[in-house]
Each structure stands twice: as structure tokens, then as C-alpha cells.
């Protein structure tokens, strides 16, 4: 079990993308398509015989030497390290990169990449922000059809509908397993450590779905066999690190300081749907409708039918959390904005919260540690 988690940690941290290189060696005609956070219709990519890969910046594994000059001050780190990955040749295993309408910096990065890497297929998906309008379903279906046509051009062959349905089924299974692990972790957080679940789920970013599903099953058995005792911790929800990722050290620190992380949005893209995507009928329509009606609440998607501040409160209650810790990447504007209404909602409901700021490449955590310890103590001895 520990070996499996260690392996996941290794592949998540390796910015040379060994799993992608291996897959490409095994599939000489295969293409790898990276996607920037948070969500992409991976089923369509996989149905083209391509490997969809979640691209999450370079963390603390790459010194920024070139990208600073292109993006300047006040811009988040993941935008810079993603460009740095390109400028230092680390994106070589990829044939394309997809972006979507999550924030202004990421959108501009899409086009900066396009200019600097003309050999790459770089595309921007407009994921709708008006789910209240019936027309958004037809629009998103057409957007997915456009993506499908681009991928067909790149692959040099047609993508069969049946193949997309097959991939939807495979990803449904994968997401189902992840959702179940999350449920279980909320029940027994001492059994499944947050950092372990994190690397386990995130490994799916860089693995073929079948391989990742097998890994999840193996981990499930491993967790079940564990002999563990509950710790004296408070139940917290971690929110706002949905794009740039904190160093693993920060997640460990939170647990060591006395937090049971009973939910988080770190790997939201890997469990994007609250329920299965239908496997019958037009698969692109099913994916489009699922995005609009079955998605989890997220800072990168507007849905006023169910505002995300209400969704957070609901999550707190469903997970029986005692507090919320906002873990915001420096310069992440969507997260900073959402914090204001989240805070208002939590304060109305009398739920304690703590705001922490991080950068993917931070390496000293003393200040964070003190803040978390103080917060946890204030709750434990309240």
C-alpha cells in the first residue's frame, strides 16, 4: 500500500512526464493532449485514441527563468511554470494543449503558448457560464463537436460515437471510485490520509484511465486492510486550491497540525460530475448536458441556480465539518473573489474559517504551520 502511494507521489512530482512518454512509446501513432485546469471533456480525447493529461504547472520542480519576463508581476505561479515547462522543452511529449474559460490569466496563457509553440495544437474551449439558458446545451454540444473535429484532424481518423460512449463508461467508473473514496475518507479520515488520497487521485492526471482505475481499486483494498486508530483532530474542508496546487508538504502540514481534511477541491477535475454521465444517446449531448446540470460547484463555473457559496455550506453540513480552511494560490483572482461571499455565508452560519495563501513553489511552511496550529487549538479548546 505504502509502495503504491509512493509510486503515485513520484509520478505526480515528475515534470518529465514519464508515464506519458511510456504511453507514447507503447503507442507510436498515439498523441498526448494536455489540458490546463480545471475540467476538460477527456472522454472525447480518449475516444480519439489519444492520452488526455491533466497539466498542473511544475510545482516546486522547476526554477522560473524565462516565464517571468513574459508574464510580469501579480500573475499566479501556475501560469508561469506552465509556460516555463514549454520554454524548457518539458512539453515535448505533448501534441496539444487545451484551455477553457476559467480565468483571464489562463486564457491569455493559451494564446501566448500558441504563439511560442506553433507546432503544438493549442485550443480554447468556451465552457458556458449561463446554464439557466436552454441554448447553452446546444452551444456546448457544438463546442464539443468542434473539438472532436480538431482531434480527428490531428489523429487523421474519425472518432466513432460508440467509442466516446465507451470512454464515458470508463471515466464514469473511474469517477465513481473516486467519489466512493471521498465518501469513505469523510467517514474514516484517520484511515485515508488527505495527502495519500490526493496523490492517488492526482496520478490519474497522467495515467490512462484504465490503469488509474486499477490503481484506485488496489488502493481501496489497501486502505481497507489498514490497522488505524482515530486521532484527535478537527474536521475541516479545504477550499480554493482548484487550479494551482499546493506543495504536498502543505497538505501534510495541515494533517499534522490536527486537521482531518474531510473534503477539498484540489483534484476537482477528476471527479467533476456529481453523478454518472449518461452512456445512452448522443454522447456529446450527454457530456454537454452533464457539464451544465451534473457538475460539482466550482469557482470557475457560474451557476446562479445553485450559487457556490450555498454549495460550500451544503458541503460543510454533509461532511459534518467543523471549519473551512481556504487555501488560496497567490494571485488567484477567482479564489480571492469567491472568498468574500464564502466568508459571508460561513459567518452567517457560525462556521469558523481560516484563510491561508500559498504558492506552488514555496518551500518553507513555518508561518503556515503556526497559523494552522493556532486555528486548530482555538477550536479544540473552545
Amino acid at each position, binding site marked *: 500500500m505504502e509502495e503504491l502511494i509512493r509510486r503515485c507521489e513520484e509520478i505526480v512530482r515528475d515534470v518529465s512526464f514519464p508515464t506519458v512518454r511510456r504511453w507514447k512509446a507503447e503507442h507510436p501513432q498515439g498523441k498526448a493532449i494536455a489540458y490546463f485546469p480545471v475540467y476538460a471533456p477527456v472522454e472525447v480525447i480518449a475516444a480519439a485514441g489519444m492520452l488526455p493529461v491533466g497539466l498542473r504547472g511544475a510545482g516546486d520542480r522547476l526554477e522560473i527563468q524565462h516565464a*517571468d*519576463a*513574459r*508574464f*510580469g*508581476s*501579480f*500573475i499566479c505561479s501556475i*501560469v508561469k511554470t506552465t509556460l516555463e515547462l514549454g520554454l524548457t522543452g518539458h512539453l515535448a511529449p505533448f501534441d496539444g494543449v487545451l484551455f477553457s*474559460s*476559467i*480565468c*483571464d*490569466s489562463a*486564457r*491569455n*496563457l*493559451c*494564446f*501566448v503558448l*500558441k*504563439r*511560442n509553440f506553433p507546432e503544438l495544437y493549442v*485550443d*480554447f*474551449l*468556451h465552457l*458556458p*457560464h*449561463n446554464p*439557466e*439558458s*436552454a*441554448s*447553452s446545451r*446546444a*452551444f456546448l454540444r*457544438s*463546442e464539443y463537436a*468542434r473539438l472532436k473535429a480538431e482531434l480527428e484532424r490531428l489523429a487523421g481518423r474519425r472518432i466513432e460515437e460508440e467509442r466516446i460512449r465507451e470512454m464515458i463508461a470508463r471515466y464514469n467508473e473511474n469517477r465513481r471510485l473516486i467519489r466512493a473514496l471521498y465518501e469513505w475518507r469523510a467517514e474514516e479520515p484517520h484511515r485515508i490520509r488527505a495527502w495519500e488520497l490526493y496523490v492517488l487521485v492526482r496520478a490519474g492526471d497522467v495515467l490512462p484511465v484504465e490503469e488509474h482505475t486499477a490503481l484506485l481499486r488496489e488502493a481501496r483494498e489497501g486502505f481497507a486492510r489498514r490497522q488505524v486508530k482515530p486521532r484527535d483532530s478537527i474536521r475541516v474542508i479545504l477550499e480554493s486550491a482548484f487550479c494551482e496546487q499546493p506543495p504536498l508538504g502543505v497538505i501534510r502540514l495541515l494533517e499534522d497540525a490536527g486537521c482531518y481534511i474531510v473534503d477539498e477541491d484540489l483534484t476537482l477535475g477528476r471527479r467533476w460530475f456529481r453523478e454518472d454521465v449518461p452512456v445512452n444517446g448522443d454522447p456529446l449531448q450527454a457530456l454537454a448536458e452533464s457539464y451544465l446540470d451534473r457538475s460539482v460547484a466550482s469557482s470557475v463555473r*457560474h451557476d*446562479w441556480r445553485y*450559487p457556490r*457559496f450555498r454549495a460550500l455550506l451544503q458541503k460543510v453540513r454533509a461532511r459534518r465539518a467543523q471549519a473551512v480552511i481556504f487555501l*488560496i494560490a*497567490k*494571485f488567484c*483572482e*477567482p479564489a*480571492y*473573489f*469567491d*472568498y*468574500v*461571499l464564502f*466568508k*459571508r455565508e460561513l459567518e452567517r452560519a457560525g462556521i469558523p474559517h481560516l484563510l491561508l495563501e500559498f504558492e506552488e513553489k514555496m518551500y518553507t511552511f513555518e508561518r503556515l504551520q503556526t497559523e494552522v496550529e493556532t486555528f486548530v487549538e482555538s477550536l479544540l479548546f473552545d
Partner: protein
Amino acid sequence: MTEYRGWIHQRQKELMQRWYARLDESARTGWPPAICLMISGNCVELLEAFGIVPIYPEVNALQLAIRHQSLEPILAAEELGYATDNCAYVKADIGAYLMGLTPSGGRLPRPTLVLCNFVGCNTYIKWFEHVAALLDAPLYVLDVPFLRGEEPSPADIAYVVAQLKELVQRIEALTGVRFDLDRFREAVRCSQRVEALWSRIKHLARREPSPFDAYFDAITLMGPLYVYRATPEGVEFFERALAELEAKAARGEGVYECERFRVVVEGPPPYPYFRAFRDMFARWRATAVASTYSTVGGIWEFGFRHDPDRPFETVALHMLAHNLTNRNYLQRYDQIRRYVEDWRADGVIIHFVKSCRLFSAGQGDMRDYLTKVLGVPTLYIESDLEDPRYFAEAQIRNRVDAFFEALERQKRAGRRMIAV
């Protein structure tokens, strides 16, 4: 005083005061209805068809900044939980609402509808979610697909048209006013006329010397352009503005007695230091002959016009493809290239503003393109459009001076310099 001050400025002031008076009337009496919307690719024609007065939070925010009143509301918003790195336009707007502060001193109405015309800027969505939540007002996000390719697709257009029609129903239900297609066509016809006039004004800046500054003076014209574009007052204003500037051009009058440099400016201005910033260019007698900021609401100098025969479709096209913010970053590079070539500029000024990532994220790459690919001298400076705490006056002045000194040397030597 370096810039031109004539009828245009006087009339602009009157028009903007009249707008604030209408907002005040709406706040006092509940009529006319008022709808919040954003400047970028705004669909003010549709509001005009209903006789609705627009509230533009960006205009309110910049008015506060230019009057040195933005810091207090920004701090009030930060008290509420906004971060130092959030867009300061949003903070000033929200803070001003909380404090009951308005640029005119009059009241602002509670919006009948908060209409987020999502045209590129993701911050718009958050901003209007907050306005709607804090004021407990209804919200409609009009989702405009970002321009991923050269032109919008038929699916993009159909999606926006469908939403515009939904919006009509929503407004009818909220105001009790029936939509009048003829009135809509009339509003679109006014816009078409204003756009043609505004485009001719912009093309006057191709003359040497340019009769007006297409950055600093253009801002004076932008208020009426967004608030009155779809009205007869707007047409009248732009007719006289064009006549006045054409007369100036005919007399061979420039912004300065002798125009020394012609520049293109990219990025919004530092409103809290508007005067000081302008003076930095005035002392070098540098005229902006084109600017990207003046195309946030719409790009008309390359030929696009609203069309009363296709009102919904052209309103959609305007929102999708004919405004700066919904066009992709590389299209902006190309827009600047066209300005440099066709408006014959000596260089480009990039003003990075901390608040606005839509404008600023990647401007280093833009500079790389301008200097290395186009070989255009480019100055890169940083501050903010609303927050006075980010303006390092001496440092910016030094960089501006260094740029023009070098540009002058190069001009004299007949060589081209590149970047500062």
C-alpha cells in the same frame, strides 16, 4: 494645459451629469428602470429599446479614481474580505455601494437587473455575482463565447442571439415594459451612425499632426460613446465632435504645437494619477495616435457597424467579435501592429495594470513580439488603473524619459531602437 479643451469637453460633462441625474431620478422614483452592465462589448441598444438607463460600474469606479476618491472605498471593500490582489475597480465599486458614495453625489438606483455581459473578462462574472448578492438583485449572465478563432462561428452567434431574446423576456417580466422592435431598430440605427462618426474621428489621428490624443482625449469621448451611443443625443454629440476635430485638422493643428512623437498605447490609464501620467507624455510632445483601451467597448475603426436590418445579429456580433476584450490575445497583437503601421507610430507604450489580468497577463510576451518580431520600440511600465497605492511616479517618469530620450537619439541617427 496641453490638451485641447473645447465644446467636446463641455458637452461631455453635461451629458455625463445628465446621465447621473437620470440615475438619481431612478433611485428616487423607481423610474426609469436601471440595469447594471459592463462596458466591454455592451448591448446598450437593447436597454435603450426599453427606455432603461444603464449603470456602468466601471465608469463609476474610474470617476471616483480620477477625483482621488477611490482609496477609501477600496479599503472598505478590503475590510469586507477582498484581497489586495483583487481588481480594484470591483473593490472601489463595491466599497462605494457600501459607503453610499457616488461620483456625482447623487444616488444610484438598486438595479432592476444585474446584467453581466460576460465578454472576455472573467472578473465581470464575479463582480456581478457580488453586486447581485450584496444588493439582493436578480442576475443574468449573458455568456458570450470567447473568440477562439478568427471569426465567430454560426453556433456562437446563434447562442448569443438566443440569450439576447431570453433577456428581452426577462426585462419585460421585470419592468412590465413591452419590447418594441421598432424602438430597438432605432437604437441600433443611432449606434450605427455614432460608430461611423467615431471611426472617422479615430482615423483623423492618422494625420500628422494628429488633431487629438487617441488615448487621453479618447477617454473623454468614451463616456458618451457607451452611455449615449444608441440615442439621438449621442449622434448629435459625435457629429459636432467630428466637425470640431476635422476643423482642427484642416487648420493643421495638433495636440501640441509641434508633434514630436507618435505612439500607440496599450492598457488602461492610471486614473488616480491621470493628470500626472498625461504630463509625462506631454513634456515630450508625444501624441497617442491609437490605443487599445479605447476599443474595450467596441472596435469600429476597422469597419464593423451595427445594422438596424439585423439588430439582434449585429448586437451579438459586436459582443462576440468587435470589442477588445472578447478577442484573443494574439488578435490584440495584430491590432497594435495595424495601428503602428497604418497610424504611423514611432513606438508602443505598454501600461501594465495590476488590477486587470485580462489586459496585463502576458504583456511581457507582447513586448517580446513587438520588439523582436516587429522591431517596434516599446516601453513597458507598471501601475494600476484604480488603486493609488501602486503608482511610483518618479520611477515611471524616469522610464518614460529614458524611452523618449533614446527614441529621439535613434530618430536623429535614423536608426530604430527597440525596448526600454
